[in-house]
């Protein structure tokens, strides 16, 4: 989008002499090898035969096998239920945060509030506070009220991250819905509530979807809360990778197979999010 019209870009690249161009490409190649290479290498591990987990010198070509995926997801398939658990917890956390975040974001976007900066800063301080501080008391609280190991324990406590994040990101999207449209609806006799549902929700819908996708990814990738608040039957997929760190040895191929499945949804969602990635990762602060 930015380079689509590319007037400036093309001109700029013409200015770069061909010797410099080679240097830039060489540096970029190193950057890509360093940042993307390890992931590809780990994905290959999931398809290697267990006896070839480490071969020195490393083999790039080998006969791929699905054995590790079979072990982890089919027979005995200990990680299969964890996929569903991850979906339940992440979806639950996302859905629960939305009504809270939507109303708060609307208030912060549309009203001249006293202490608005303070409130925004308060939300973000929760987002960057150390979660371990909260998790240990939750661990004791949940066993006291009989919620230990339940989905709702994880879904509820994840709100400490999901709500502040969604408020920030949703506010940035609601700020972009022109006030005129809403005012026109009021003139036509709509109440604030019906204008909210008829104007704001439809126009901010892409933003609501983007926010939900990010909340889903962050909940999916969260390990601390399920590590401490889940039990074996409710634990999530990223936590499941840890279980192969047995005292009998480390099953690298199975860790990799589980990790590959765990990394797929976030990667696909980021791919779909495209130009919203910058905005989501900065909680709406940088429009991108």
């Amino acid at each position: 989008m930015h380079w689509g019209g590319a007037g400036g870009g093309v001109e700029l690249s013409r200015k770069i002499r061909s010797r410099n161009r080679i240097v830039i490409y060489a540096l970029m190649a190193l950057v890509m090898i360093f940042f993307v290479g390890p992931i590809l290498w780990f994905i290959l591990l999931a398809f290697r035969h267990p006896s070839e987990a480490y071969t020195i010198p490393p083999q790039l070509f080998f006969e791929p096998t699905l054995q590790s995926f079979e072990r982890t997801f089919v027979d005995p398939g200990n990680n299969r239920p964890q996929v569903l658990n991850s979906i339940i917890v992440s979806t639950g956390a996302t859905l629960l945060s939305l009504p809270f975040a939507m109303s708060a974001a609307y208030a912060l976007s549309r009203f001249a509030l006293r202490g608005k900066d303070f409130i925004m800063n308060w939300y973000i301080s929760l987002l960057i506070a150390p979660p371990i501080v909260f998790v240990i008391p939750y661990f004791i609280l949940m066993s006291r009220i009989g919620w230990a190991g339940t989905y709702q324990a994880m879904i509820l406590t994840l709100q400490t991250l999901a709500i502040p994040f969604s408020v920030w990101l949703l506010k940035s999207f609601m700020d972009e819905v022109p006030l005129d449209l809403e005012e026109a609806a009021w003139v036509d006799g709509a109440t604030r509530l019906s204008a909210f549902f008829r104007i704001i929700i439809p126009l901010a819908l892409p933003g609501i979807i983007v926010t939900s996708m990010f909340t889903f990814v962050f909940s999916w990738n969260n390990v601390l809360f399920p590590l401490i608040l889940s039990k074996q039957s409710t634990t999530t997929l990223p936590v499941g990778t840890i279980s192969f760190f047995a005292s009998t040895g480390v099953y690298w191929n199975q860790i990799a197979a589980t990790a590959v499945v765990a990394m797929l949804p976030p990667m696909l969602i980021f791919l779909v999010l495209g130009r919203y990635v910058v905005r989501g990762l900065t909680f709406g602060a940088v429009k991108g």
Partner: protein
Amino acid sequence: MNLNRRLPYLLLAPSIIILLALILYPLGFALRNSFWFWNLQTSAVPLYHSGLDNYRMVFQVTPFTEALKNTLLLAGLGTLAQFWLGMGVALLLHTHLRGMGFCRALLIMPTTLAPVVAGFLFRYLLEPKGGLLPWLLEGIGFPVPPQGILGYAGTALFAIGMVDTWQWTPFFAIVLYAGLLSISEEVKEAAQVDGASGWRMFWSITLPLLRPIAAFLVMIRFMQLFNSFDLVFVLTGGGPGTSSRTLSFNLYREGLVNYNIGLTAAMTWLVVIIVTVIINLYIIFIFRKRDW
């Protein structure tokens, strides 16, 4: 009219109430228990009032000062490395040479991973026998400690920082690149007309204009690194010894491995105070003039 004045507060109330409940419970719980002796292994309830003993014990029984030092080192150096490496990559992307758009799209991959997955990935690559990285490092004549990079006290914390830097440099690169795009061509052209060199332009035009974005990114990353738990858990378990313990991992060890709830509660409050100071310093000095 009256309702309209109260409406925004009514709309904010649900989220603030649920969040306050979710925060005040743990903080209150920790405050109360920080003055009690309570080990979950011996008792399901607090045993006896112990005054300030827990606060003293935090320094005597756990490597709190070492963990604090490790945490600040990790967060400070990690953020610094990620910012400048990310800036470098952003400048490469900003040359707009053919293929840079594609690189930018692929580059986000590490940032999408769960930290625990990134941790396993590098634990595999760093494995002392058969790992790719020790093999490569030895190949270029770099001595690798026999217990492995993660198993050697001098390099374990550094390795955690390196993995985090691997995961989050692309984040800096992509956001700073978006920032570079937002700097208007006119500003740059005016500077060029004035005869500013590329280097000069970067320091006196580009960097100051990126300052609000940079300040925001640095704050977020500093705090996320400050809270590091997942990577420490998977890569080193805080070891060898206590050489790579962070504050978060120290809390985890005391609370959920040793089940020393009273002591953990005291440590929780010490950490809360430190974090509050850092965040408020940040808000007061750098973050106050927010203009987004």
